[in-house]
């Protein structure tokens, strides 16, 4: 296949490059080219949010963006969420609140929730629910997820 595209980008702060078919999504590139399998494909149509990442700080579904579009961007995935050995408060609170059961939606929800708290450190329950409406979870009924996000937000506000 001759029409592969060379892409240089930054993922979780690291300079990376890869070759991809123009049809490949950013999610394909992350998973298959860079072996970052934390973002999941639950639907491929932007309806489930399991592939959530941020691109230049903007929350997106990586299944709805081409790998080629990543050229020159800064991408953040679940793999970069813990800094050094230290979990992000959201990650810690998700474990403490049992906010995951099967865990397959968890990376996407954590990335989305982190993006929310960066924009709005003190969201209401309703704001959290609407922000996360594009992140399907089939196991938990969302209750413990919402509690974990609210609790993490509170802790982060206290620490700030």
């Amino acid at each position, binding site marked *: 296949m001759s*029409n592969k*595209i060379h892409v240089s980008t930054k993922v979780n702060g690291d300079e990376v490059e890869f070759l991809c078919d*123009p*049809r490949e*999504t950013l999610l394909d590139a992350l998973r298959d080219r860079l072996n970052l399998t934390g973002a999941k494909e639950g639907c*491929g*149509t*932007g*309806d489930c*949010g399991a592939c*959530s990442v941020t*691109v230049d700080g*903007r*929350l*997106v*579904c990586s*299944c*709805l*963006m*081409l790998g*080629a*579009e990543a050229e020159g961007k800064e991408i953040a995935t679940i793999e970069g969420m813990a800094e050094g050995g230290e979990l992000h408060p959201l990650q810690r609170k998700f474990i403490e609140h049992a906010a995951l059961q099967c865990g397959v939606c968890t990376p996407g929800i954590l990335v*989305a929730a982190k*993006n*929310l708290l960066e924009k709005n450190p003190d969201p209401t329950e309703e704001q959290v629910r*609407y*922000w*996360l*409406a*594009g*992140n399907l979870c089939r196991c938990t009924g969302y209750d413990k997820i919402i509690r974990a996000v609210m609790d993490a937000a509170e802790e982060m506000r206290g620490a700030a």
Partner: protein
Amino acid sequence: MKYHTPASFADASAIAAEAHGVTRFLAGGTDVLVQMRSDIVTPEDLIDVKHIDGVKDITQNADGSWTIGIAVAGAEMTEHPTLGQEWPGLVEAMDLIGSTQVQGRATLVGNLCNGSPAADSVPAQIAAGVTVTVTGPNGTRDVAVEDIPSGPGRTTLQKGELISALHVPARGDNAGDAYLRFIPRTEMDIAVVGCGISLRVDGDVITEARVSLGAVAPTVLLVADAAKAIIGTTLDDAALDSLAKAAEAACSPIDDKRGTIEFRTEVAGVLAKRTAKIAYARAKGEKV
């Protein structure tokens, strides 16, 4: 598939004009990538328009009107400090499309060019009187939004043409807009019915109005009779009832997996009333 990143609208137009197979323009990609993934459309040429200067800008012009770049994402509209104060209905309509993630990419122009009669931003655009500039092989032309869609999934754009800018009129005084849609869930659905209304008041009396309905016909409708039903009124119960009747009369929907003819027609009237009340309150300076 070939992936292009032209640096000007003229180049983008030329690539499309010379293409032999299926062509798609890529801005936010929230429809195009779904079509590719679902094997509905695999373009031979995909033209990414985000490398063209100015496509990410929201600009208020000297006359108070707005020019919105064709790759401005919904989230960028929502975060804009003043656009949503002047055109809350338009911004909210855009914001209703898809998830937070989709908002990070989806655009007004993409929503329009996808040609869906259920597109959330389109009734709000039509109600607001939005126009677009179309660039093509023969230069540019300005077109009203309501003249872009020609049927489900189809537009009036010709081969080699693309929308190069979107213009929102100056809001002016004593005016307000609103958009409401009906979906079975609270988020993540396609509108079963959508209604956008923009109006102006003089005191308590409505002096201008535009009413638009989505998902009740093959294209989004501008319903002149519905506007007539409330112009000159104080949006009293009688006016609301005739608005609802006019909205229902304009409907020629289909039965499908998302709703029935009967439901869509009925709810079009209900939404028209509810939307009008919000737009009216906003026009009168009330916080809604």
